[in-house]
């Protein structure tokens, strides 16, 4: 009985651990795409968040400084995409792909420049169990706040109108490019918290490849969650649950690859419309000029 409830508790805990980075990244993606900018670069933003959180913590000795640095780094990286997408009118998906490659190469290079060693940073003081709990709760809080902001406030209406029909938004006096820019940047800041969680809560260092495709799973969660913060939250928890389950089932004969593939297959199914109609914002991914 206690064994069972203990195992259950462990599973729930592990689900939260696995889901939290996905929640942040997916929420960042939701905000960005609601404004009409597809953010394929979430993986890179997670990487930047994780890396700079560790760098700043190493420099200051204070993980809270690290959190701030990670968030700022994610926002800055997102700003590159936002600038390219709004001011240069480039293909967002191609640019986002480039962003991922930049972040991965940049962090690997940065390890050598900052820590003098490739592969992984040294350990830094991390946020500890209390900090980890705060980050988990914050993920849920941000989901709720983002829902409120998108669907209840004027700003959210403006963001959504830019994602649906930026020309109409401009006619209503909204600067569509500026709105998109800031949505992508704030989305990047939110997503970066996922990377911060990975390096400063789940672990206490940065190591190459530690994001392990979570940015892509988050993209799947955005679609599976139908571009809604609560939907994305649910999808991230769902994927997190299967990521957690994979450890318990490892020796039960179920190949762990099957479990790991689940989010990706689920996203494919969502794309085909079997799981109900999914509609991206009408102007999602389409460059706009004044």
């Amino acid at each position: 009985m206690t064994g069972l409830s203990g195992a259950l508790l462990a599973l729930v805990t592990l689900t939260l651990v696995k889901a939290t980075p996905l929640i942040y990244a997916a929420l960042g993606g939701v905000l960005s795409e609601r404004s009409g900018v597809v953010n394929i670069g979430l993986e890179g933003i997670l990487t930047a968040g994780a890396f700079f959180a560790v760098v700043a913590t190493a420099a200051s000795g204070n993980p809270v400084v690290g959190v701030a640095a990670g968030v700022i780094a994610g926002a800055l990286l997102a700003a590159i995409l936002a600038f390219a997408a709004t001011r240069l009118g480039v293909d967002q998906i191609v640019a986002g792909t480039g962003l991922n490659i930049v972040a991965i190469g940049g962090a690997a290079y940065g390890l050598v420049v900052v820590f003098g060693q490739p592969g992984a940073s040294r350990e830094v003081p991390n946020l500890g169990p209390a900090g980890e709990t705060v980050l988990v709760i914050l993920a849920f809080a941000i989901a709720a706040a983002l829902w409120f902001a998108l669907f209840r406030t004027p700003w959210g209406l403006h963001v959504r109108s830019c994602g649906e029909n930026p020309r109409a938004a401009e006619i209503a006096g909204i600067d569509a490019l500026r709105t998109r820019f800031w949505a992508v940047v704030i989305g990047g800041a939110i997503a970066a918290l996922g990377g911060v969680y990975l390096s400063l809560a789940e672990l206490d260092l940065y190591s190459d490849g530690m994001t392990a495709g979570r940015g892509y799973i988050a993209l799947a969660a955005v679609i599976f969650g139908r571009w809604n913060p609560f939907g994305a939250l649910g999808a991230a928890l769902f994927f997190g649950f299967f990521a957690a389950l994979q450890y318990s089932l490892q020796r039960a004969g179920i190949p762990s690859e099957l479990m790991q593939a689940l989010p990706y297959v689920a996203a494919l199914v969502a794309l085909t419309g079997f799981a109900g109609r999914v509609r991206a914002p009408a102007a999602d991914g389409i460059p706009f000029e004044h």
Partner: protein
Amino acid sequence: MQRTVRDALIAVAVVFGVGSLAMLLAHVSPINGFGALLDGALGNPSEVAETLLQTTALLFPALGVALAFRAGLFNIGAEGQIVLGGMTAGILGVALPLPGLLLIPIVLLAGAAAGGLWGGLAGFLKARFGANEVIATLMLNTIALLLATYLIGGPFKQPGAGAAETPPLPAAAWLPVIIPNTRLSISFILALALAATLWYVFRRTVFGYELRAAGDAPEAARRAGIDLGRTAFTALALSGAIAGLGGATIVMGVLHRFNTGLSPGYGFIAIAVALVGNLEPLFIIFAAFGFGILQSGAIAMQAEANVPRDVVTLVEGLVIIALAGRRFIVERRTA
């Protein structure tokens, strides 16, 4: 032509500009850094051969990516298609009891078929359900890698192997080497021939014409009797097949076994290669050579000038961002 020259100049400027800055950050003189890079890539015949090897590995997926782009489709899934093409070649190369003359073409084709199946799956989902091919190919990347990890680690595991890899291929399945004492095999010739073929297909054939029409003006193409669904399927399947073929040549010509880590991101860098080559197969050869120099010279640069080779990845990503503004905008806006 002008546009190609300009794109190439942008790429070169990004590589040297940002690369130099990054080297300065690591307290290395860019002259030493790039010197070591170029020397390592082109310093002696054996190094040139290694560079051409990288060129080949990039050329296949870049041609595949370009083919899809020409049809207005973004195949971000070349990486997964390489893995499956390579895996199929690895499994069949060991399993088929055939003489080399038969074995090599059959295994190559099987690798292409596997990649084609994977690309075609995204194409089918697009044609049948309107599923966005960008996300689909992206998801299929990871699924391919997990599938290969599962198959190679489980059902097709090499007894006693230390890593997720197949047993070594019999020598009959090795691609013949074209420069003795190097690893450069006929796959290089194959890639060049494929580029030339694609050039001809785009330029001259009805198929290439219809592909381009579908990419450049889908609605006009549809009304001109071009089946967009079928075009999407064919283009993604072919794109995947070309990448898969590339994977098979890595296994048969370079690694001589399949390993899930056979590609250090060729499928993604191929996007940059295709863009720098302006989606023109013949220009892509030169773009692939340029990136081949970066890829192969980076190793020597790290050994000799102490610059982490990741700087090359960094600049490759920046090249993609810098060139993302080309060409696609028009087509996507009108789509």
